[in-house]
């Protein structure tokens, strides 16, 4: 008879796989159960149209923690991050703004648009370095409960207090501004170049139901700078093979550590006996017992769907009800017979190996948000596009291409609900807007996949289609993610843990939640 499982991980998203890999490496017997036929959750690569590979829900990577890459030796399991050097913002007047990765070229372009911004760009970069350094220790920390007097919490809070004190007044004040301001206002303090401000501010709205002028978005903007400060690890990159290759690499590391991964195994509920999790029951009736159960799903599913609600205290249920998902983004994936020809920068070129951002002005983005506020998808949305096949020729047949278009806003709660017709209308709005900048796009389309927040929920199982397992807003971060008193990866049910993006720090293909959760689980095992 084989040894019983030490842990069952529900959901083979990247965080679930990270937790599994760390537990496996600690010598534990681990089983990962995945509802779909492939691992990755929202980080999957699928050949939806023959010969063309789509990163269906996601597209780029920057935040994947370097310590995870190193500790799990992901490079030897196939992870290869290819550079994404630039961001082109086409403008309605036929001009463009190009944010080059190269410092000299970046200056050249800024000089053309707003000479004062040349200096501001360096100073802003330095400021964000300091701010990211100020926040980064928090990302690697188990969130202490500020209302608790337990020795562990007090120790963490003291450490945090000292950290903020050591920042000095100037940086602390700047951090405070960053925490409270909108990304548009914050950027206004530095820059004159409108497309630069708009394109940067777009980082502050991704995955939130907020506009660039909504307070709190400056913090989200900075969250995306976090990936920039790890020296050798590139800022924004594209995983060779698409985002699914990241999941595959982590799964490879997990398997190498003895972890068993079972796909097409949908968990119906967590089995609880005498207040302790003892295993899971699958939809097909199979019951699998384990010493510990870990959910990599979002908080609503982790608590309200997999558990009997009578096991949960009222205040937690209350907190979970207040936790906002509000998926606001969609995705359009295209198979193309030829590359788009951008009017502002005709022909092939280095710009197609970078991102194309449809964010000509802050007004444009705010108007896109206005549509969503009142329950419509943006008629002229913000878009962040890349051509994976230009960066990695393996993504499409030679000479043909795939295009990945991240689109915001597409509210989950669309007026009248999402239908097939609405989905196609949304896809049309995306293509029509893009075709204004690249007229040959429409005729180049061989296949189009439109993903709405409803599709993200239905296919990937993310509540309300929020790509971060709940909005990355200050009111639901750190010791409030996902709910007060339950931010330390534990749950009111003994031996039942959470490790998804809905726990601190959450957001993006980062893996930090999964790693911290594994650390807490192992600590509890050592204690028991």
């Amino acid at each position, binding site marked *: 008879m084989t040894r019983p499982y030490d842990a069952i991980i529900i959901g083979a998203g990247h965080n679930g796989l990270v937790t599994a890999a760390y537990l496996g490496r600690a010598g534990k017997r681990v089983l990962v159960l995945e509802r779909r036929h492939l691992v990755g959750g929202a980080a999957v690569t699928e050949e939806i149209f023959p010969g063309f590979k789509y990163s269906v829900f996601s597209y780029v990577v920057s935040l994947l923690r370097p310590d995870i890459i190193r500790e799990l030796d992901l490079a030897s399991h196939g992870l290869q991050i290819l550079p994404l050097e630039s961001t082109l913002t086409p403008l309605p007047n036929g001009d463009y703004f190009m944010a080059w990765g190269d410092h*000299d070229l970046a200056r*050249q372009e800024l000089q053309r648009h707003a000479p*004062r*911004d*040349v*200096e501001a760009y360096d100073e802003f970069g330095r400021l964000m370095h300091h701010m990211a350094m100020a926040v980064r220790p928090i990302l690697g920390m188990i969130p202490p409960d500020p209302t608790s007097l337990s020795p562990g919490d007090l120790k963490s809070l003291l450490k945090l207090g000292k950290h903020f004190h050591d920042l000095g007044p100037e940086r602390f004040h700047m951090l405070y501004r960053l925490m409270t301001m909108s990304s548009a206002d914050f950027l206004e303090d530095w820059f004159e170049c409108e497309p630069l401000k708009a394109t940067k501010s777009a980082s502050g709205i991704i995955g939130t139901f907020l506009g660039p002028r909504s307070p709190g978005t400056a913090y989200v903007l900075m969250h995306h700078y976090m990936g920039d400060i790890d020296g050798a690890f590139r800022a924004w990159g594209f995983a060779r093979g698409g985002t699914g290759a990241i999941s595959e690499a982590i799964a490879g590391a997990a398997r190498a550590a003895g972890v068993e991964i079972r796909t097409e195994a949908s968990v119906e509920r967590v089995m609880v006996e005498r207040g302790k999790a003892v295993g899971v029951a699958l939809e097909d009736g199979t019951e699998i017992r384990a010493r510990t159960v870990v959910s990599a799903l979002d908080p609503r599913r982790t608590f309200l769907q997999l558990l009997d609600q009578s096991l949960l205290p009222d205040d937690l249920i209350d907190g979970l009800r207040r936790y906002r998902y509000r998926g606001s983004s969609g995705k359009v994936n295209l198979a193309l017979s030829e590359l788009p020809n951008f009017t502002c920068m*005709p022909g092939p*070129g280095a710009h197609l190996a970078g991102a194309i951002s449809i964010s000509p002005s802050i007004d444009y983005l705010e108007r896109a948000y206005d549509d969503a506020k009142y329950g419509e998808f943006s008629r002229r949305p913000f878009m962040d596009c890349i051509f994976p096949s230009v960066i990695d020729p393996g993504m499409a047949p030679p000479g043909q291409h795939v295009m990945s278009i991240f689109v915001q806003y597409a509210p989950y709660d669309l007026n009248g609900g999402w239908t097939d017709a609405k989905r196609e209308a949304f896809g049309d709005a995306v293509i029509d807007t893009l075709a204004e900048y690249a007229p040959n796009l429409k005729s180049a389309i061989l296949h189009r996949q439109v993903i709405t927040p409803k599709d993200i929920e239905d296919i990937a199982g993310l509540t309300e289609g929020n790509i971060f397992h709940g909005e990355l807003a200050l009111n639901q971060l750190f010791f409030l993610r996902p709910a007060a008193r339950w931010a330390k990866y534990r749950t009111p049910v003994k031996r039942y843990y959470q490790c998804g993006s809905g726990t601190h720090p959450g957001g993006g293909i980062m893996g930090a939640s999964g790693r911290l959760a594994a650390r807490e689980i192992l600590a509890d095992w050592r204690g028991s």
Partner: protein
Amino acid sequence: MTPLQLNTTPFHQRTAALAQGHAWRRWAGHAVLGCYQLHHDREYAAIRSGSGLIDVSPLYKYLIHGRDACRLLNRIVPRNVAKCQVGRVLYTPWCDSHGKVIDDGTISRLGEKTYRLTSADPNIRWLTDNAGGMDVVIEDVSRSLGAVALQGPTARDILARVADAEVESLRYFHLTEGTIRGIPVTISRTGYTGDLGYEIWVAADRAVPLWDALVETGADYGLLPAGILALDVARIEAGLLMIDVDYVSAHRALIDSQFSSPYELNLGWTVNLEKGPFNGRDALVAEHRHGPTWAFVGIEVDWEGLIELYAAVGLPPQLPTTAWRISVPLYVGRTQVGYATSGCWSPVLKKYIALAHVETRFAAPGTAIEMEVTVEHHRRPVAVTVVKTPFFDPERKKAGAAGQRGSGAGDGT
């Protein structure tokens, strides 16, 4: 569509044609040649024996004009700009509010209310932010104005022959207007080599014929176009510091230890605490009172020591073939007391020299310390001595033409 290329200088058409090894390097966003020939030896030699013609157009250049032009500059730099008369040039660093150096360059007074500032980094935002409420117009002429340095013992003779300008009587750190083959130019007796030399400022669209005129005339005087590798050796010999190599701009420094004050860069002589308020003054007053922690000095490597280290592995001494720009630790015993930031073999002095940051107590000339050298893959300490800069300071740098009286010292380098 902007071609995906670095900027080129107004002399590019000529310089590119001379690039034997296509040894392009970056300077302030421009492509310039490290050396024209396959090695920079002869180009450097020209600077010290004939003349080197160096394209210095990548410098940032700002024209500052108006009733408050002097007031603006006096607010920004620690030197007293009010003392700069028309036709004079002064070198100065400038600081942030904490008295830490942002950049350094020259200020030329072109007219009663007109100045030109040169800098290594863009400064338009810094200038305009400091000009609030002032009656002054700031114009970025970086791209519209070309600049070429003619440096070396024959530089005056070349200019005297080709230029219609008062060159023979032009004193150190003075400037004059004139023409060269009909091309209007400003000629300043300035440079980055510590030698007799001039910088010639010309409208970008007249740069190529100016180059031709200088090269043709210079042919009889040992003129060679010289790239920035040769310039780097010359500027180290002259003890002149370089931003991003010898110090970090206060606008880019990330941690406290990366900032430098003028005192710490051996530029205390540029700081005039009596002239009235200027950026960083309060911090500099305090630092002046307590004395700086760091000093920027010249060091000379002990030749015998170097020979011994190499003899021990059976080799003659190996010397750097180009100027190096890396941080090299300096020790007293086992304690690190500083670091050198640029160094080279000086062909004219026949000495191995370097520019270095040391704790002030080790800054006095004659102080014996040690520098790390790598001898056949092994790190070894070699004796070095702190010496006065400039290492190389020929009389001709400031002297008048034969039969002219020497131009005054104290004009400031």
